Every structure is written in structure tokens, then in C-alpha cells.
């Protein structure tokens, strides 16, 4: 099993919670700068400890993430992370200009000499509000944007694109990706529609904001669709993202989480603006099994022990966390474990990363 370290680049100062968008009234540029610097330090540490990937994401209008453009953040990361792959999970392609996304990924692939993982996601429902895009068109825009991005990476001659949602008279991007024919693509595999599309286009999938049983069912669907399309996904084609905290003992790890308030229900994104999420759901954003998709997001606010049981949280000593990771490998067949270290005080967080790096990572390889 490979390991990725995900850092969402949280704002580490005071801010209003439980809403979206979040007013910037209390924003401090000093805290913002410090928050970004700590995220960069964490990516750097992950690289030193031997993590296979460091992962960035795109979120807008909330202190949850100071990385609304992961391409910019990744540009900085290329100068600090010299060995690990740099994964962007993702670019929220339906709300972006796909030609620009193709160019930015190609720049990053060039800067890293071929170490970019190109995640392409739909994002959470609230992202559609940021750039004024109708969430009802999210999936159609996603599918078209991905095809256009691949074409922009691979077509050696200038071409025009006459799409449904995108039109470009002439496209001929420079630089070109280092990885040929193009960087690996990961998309969300949570919904049945996504699994079918990923299988048809032979791209990899990732799971986040889910539970192990839900992910197992969705991964099964993806593998069955891939088989019908005549191919078999490798373990590395399935990524599972999970929150983690590692300490000297199980008791200490759980106590750290309780003290830091990390066992409180997690809110953010669309879940913090129910009318918005209801409107997006009503527009068909969640697809043909809306109830399950929304339930998966609501499941993030379960109590801590239940989240551990459901494979939503890894917590304990290195041995315990390794056993929890083994369960993900075995039940899901995932080849990439992506951990986001729980928001605990900095010293504990750094120790958790080091304990994971020294006590879990080397043995993860053999799973």
C-alpha cells in the first residue's frame, strides 16, 4: 500500500463556523500566511518521511481551506517537495476553464519532471455558487471538461472544440505534460454515475467523505463496470482518504482527539448551508441515488468511536492504525491510503505524522 498525506490548508485562526460562505471579518493576513507556511512544512515533512504522495485540494469561501486554487499552492509545493508525487484532488473542473486546467497541470508536471497526479472532481455543491455555475449541469460539464483536458494534453496539432458547455476555436497548449500520454487521472468514485464514467474512461478513483462500507459498495460497482469495459483496475487505481491521529498508545490518541475537540461533529462545505445544499440536491446535483450521497456526507458528523468503526477515522498507536489500514486494503482493495492528520495541537500533530512515518509507513508497503 502507498501513503499520501493530504493537507487542506486550514486557516488556523479564529473564524465563524457552521455556515457557508464564511465572512472574512476576523481574517488576519498574518495568521493566513502562517497557516500556509505550516501546510508547506507539513508537505515537506511528509516528503522527508517517505510518503508517496502529498495531496492538495480546492475549496472556496471558508476558513476550512486557504487553497481555492490548488494549482497556485502546488506551484509552491514543487519547490519544497523533491521526491513525492504532488496530487491535486482536485481541480474542480466543472467550474473552471478546462483549457486553463490542462495548461496548469502541464506546467506542474514540467516543474516536477512528471510527478503530478491530476485529480478532477466535481467538488461539493457549494463550489457551484462560487463561480455561478448551475449545479444541475455539473456532471455534464465534468465529463466534457475531462475529455477536453485529455485532448489538450495529447493532440499535437492546434484544434477547435465544439462542445455542449465549452467552445474553443483553437487550442494548442504549451508546455506539454512530461508523463505520456498524460498524467494519471483520479476522480471521485462515490456515485454510481462516477464509477461508470471512470470505468469507461479507464481512470482511477478516490473516496473521501464516505464510510468504508459505502466505499466498498461503490468500488465494487467501479470494478464490475471496468470488467464490462474489458479492463481490471489495479490497487493503485483506488484511493481512500481518511482522517488519522497516531500517538504512543490508543488511549493517548483518543484522549488527544477529545481534548482538541476533534471528536465533535465535523461541519463544513455544503453541510453548513442546508438551504444551498437542498437547492443543489433539488437540481439533481447528487444524481440517481441522492439519498445515499447526502447520507454519506451526513455520516461525517457521527461520534468518534463510530467513525473509527466505520473506517472514517484512523486513531491509536502505530500498531492499531496499521491494523485499521489493513482493513481498508482488504475490504476495499485500495492501493493508496490518503491520510489527513487530525486537527490537534501542532506538537501532537507533528508527532503523529512522525509516528505514522516511522511506525506505520514502512509496514504499509507490505499490505
Amino acid at each position, binding site marked *: 500500500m502507498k501513503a499520501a498525506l493530504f493537507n487542506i490548508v486550514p486557516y488556523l485562526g479564529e473564524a465563524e463556523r457552521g455556515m457557508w460562505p464564511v465572512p472574512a471579518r476576523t481574517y488576519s493576513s498574518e495568521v493566513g500566511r502562517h497557516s500556509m507556511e505550516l501546510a508547506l512544512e507539513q508537505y515537506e515533512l511528509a516528503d522527508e518521511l517517505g510518503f508517496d504522495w502529498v495531496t492538495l485540494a480546492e475549496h472556496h469561501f471558508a476558513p476550512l481551506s486557504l487553497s481555492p486554487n490548488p494549482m497556485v499552492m502546488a506551484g509552491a509545493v514543487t519547490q519544497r517537495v523533491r521526491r513525492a508525487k504532488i496530487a491535486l484532488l482536485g481541480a474542480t473542473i466543472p467550474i473552471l476553464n478546462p483549457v486553463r486546467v490542462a495548461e496548469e497541470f502541464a506546467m506542474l508536471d514540467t516543474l516536477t519532471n512528471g510527478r503530478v497526479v491530476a485529480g478532477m472532481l466535481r467538488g461539493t455543491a457549494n463550489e457551484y455558487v462560487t463561480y455561478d455555475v448551475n449545479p444541475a449541469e455539473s456532471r455534464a460539464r465534468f465529463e466534457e471538461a475531462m475529455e477536453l483536458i485529455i485532448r489538450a494534453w495529447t493532440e499535437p496539432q492546434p484544434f477547435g472544440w465544439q462542445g*455542449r458547455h465549452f467552445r474553443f476555436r483553437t487550442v494548442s497548449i504549451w508546455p506539454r505534460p512530461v508523463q505520456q500520454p498524460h498524467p494519471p487521472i483520479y476522480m471521485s468514485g462515490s456515485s454510481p454515475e462516477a464509477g461508470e464514467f471512470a470505468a469507461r474512461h479507464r481512470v482511477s478513483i478516490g473516496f473521501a467523505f464516505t464510510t468504508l462500507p459505502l466505499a466498498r459498495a461503490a468500488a465494487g460497482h467501479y470494478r464490475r463496470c471496468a470488467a464490462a469495459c474489458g479492463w481490471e483496475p489495479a490497487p493503485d487505481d483506488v484511493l481512500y482518504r481518511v482522517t488519522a491521529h497516531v500517538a504512543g498508545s490508543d488511549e493517548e490518541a483518543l484522549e488527544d482527539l477529545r481534548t482538541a475537540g476533534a471528536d465533535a461533529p465535523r461541519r463544513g462545505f455544503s453541510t453548513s448551508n442546508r438551504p444551498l445544499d437542498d437547492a443543489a440536491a433539488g437540481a439533481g446535483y447528487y444524481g440517481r441515488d441522492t439519498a445515499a450521497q447526502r447520507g454519506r456526507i451526513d455520516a461525517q458528523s457521527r461520534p468518534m468511536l463510530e467513525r473509527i468503526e466505520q473506517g472514517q477515522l484512523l486513531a491509536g498507536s502505530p500498531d492499531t492504525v496499521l491494523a485499521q489500514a489493513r482493513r481498508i486494503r482488504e475490504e476495499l482493495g485500495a492501493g493508496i491510503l490518503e491520510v489527513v492528520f487530525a486537527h490537534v495541537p501542532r506538537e501532537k500533530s507533528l508527532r503523529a505524522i512522525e509516528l505514522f512515518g516511522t511506525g506505520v509507513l514502512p509496514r504499509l508497503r507490505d499490505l
Partner: protein
Amino acid sequence: MGSPTWLEDHVEADGFRIRYVESGDGAPLVHLHGGGGLVMTPAHDLLARERRVIAFEMPGFGESPENTRHETMPDMARTMLEAVSALGVEEFDLMGTSFGSKTALWTALIAPERLRALVLESPAAIRPEGRRPQPATPEELVALLHAHPERVPPRPASSIEQRARTRPMVTRLMGPPRDPELEEAMPGLQVPVLAVFGTEDRMIPSEMGRAYRQLLPRCHLLFVYDAGHAVAADRPEAFTEAVSDFLDRHEQFVVSQRSSVLFP
């Protein structure tokens, strides 16, 4: 806007009696069909709103007698040039579909001074090596031609018989997958060309489009997303918008004229 009326007639040219349909006013646009014969699509209607569209049925196709006289595609091109002249049309825009793209390319090479611009829809003039798929049933034909066969009404059984009947001529005129004579002539063609491929083309991979861009000095390559080999049938509005804009503005069509003003 309702569908325009199509007038059907025949024209005598080069010893052939050639059927054609015509609609619209304005600059003439001549269309040469694909290997399956003349199939009208909504794109014909859309194009006829702004120009005079003349769609020929080339000798040997449809109800016309078997065509054993044309040995090569340039022969067919010369006949079609005479047919256009017989209608009193001197200068024109030309659009060729698949098989008809090769006819159109030769027409342009033989009489470049008469062409304003050339559109190649899913051109079959340059093909990958190996046999092209030959559909055995109307269902297979529809599946090969369209991105979403389930959305297309089934073609009549006669469409397969028609293809079988014209296959010797189509094979003869189409020539080899790579035609050295044509490819040597293409770099000299100074007519503006738009080569259009559907991203879901299952007859000819859309990657073949780059060969036209490479060989023709004034060629633009355009991909129509989620369209099959039958681009104009699958995405008529998308196809027509790009073709019309190209015919109106040639290379300058890359410069957007759309306003992004939402409210004054």
C-alpha cells in the same frame, strides 16, 4: 423557424443524370455525401437558413444506374464540377462528408479558383491501415455512425443493400488508406479548409484529423464533442454554428464575436 422547403430536381452533366436537392438563398454551398448516399440531416435545414444549399446525389448512388465509368476520385470530382456549372454556379463553398470529403478535396485541387472554402466532415481521405468495419445490419450501421445509437431511429434494411450495391464503386474511388497522389497535392491547396471530427467517431478515429492539419496549409481542425462519424446528424446545431462561422469568416473565425455583456 420552420424547416425550409427542399426542391428536388436532376441536372445533366458529363453524360450523367444527377439528382440533387436545393434550399435557401445566398452564397451557394455544395454538399457531397458519404459512402452511404445522400442522407439529409437537420444540419442541412440549419445551413439553408443563411445560404443556398445544394446537396447532390453522386452518380452510382441512390436510384441512379450503376456507375462503372469513374475509375478514380478525380474522375468523380470533374463530373461534380460540371454538375455545379450546369446549375449556373461559378464560385461556391464545398462540403464533403466522409467518402465525399475525398471527392471534395479532389474538386478543390482541380478547380481551386472556384472554391471559396472547403469543409470536410469526418473525412475518409486518410485512414488508418486495415479494413474498415462493414456493418451487416441496419442496427450495426447506426451503432457505427452515431455516438448515441439509442437516440437514432433505425435505418431501413435497404440501407445495407444500398451499401452492398455501391461498395465496388466506393472501394474503387476511395483508394488506399493513404493515397500518395492526393497527399502530395494537398500541401499546394490554398483554399481555407475546416476538418471536422466527432470525438466518438467509430468509423475513423478522430486522431486522423491531425493529418489534414499537417498536410493542408490553411486547415483548421475541429472536434465536435459527443458526436459520432455522422457529426451533422448527431450535433446539428454545434456542427452548423462552426461551419457557418468558418464559411463566413475563414481563418478569422478564431476571433470570438460573442458579447459577454450580461446587463448593460
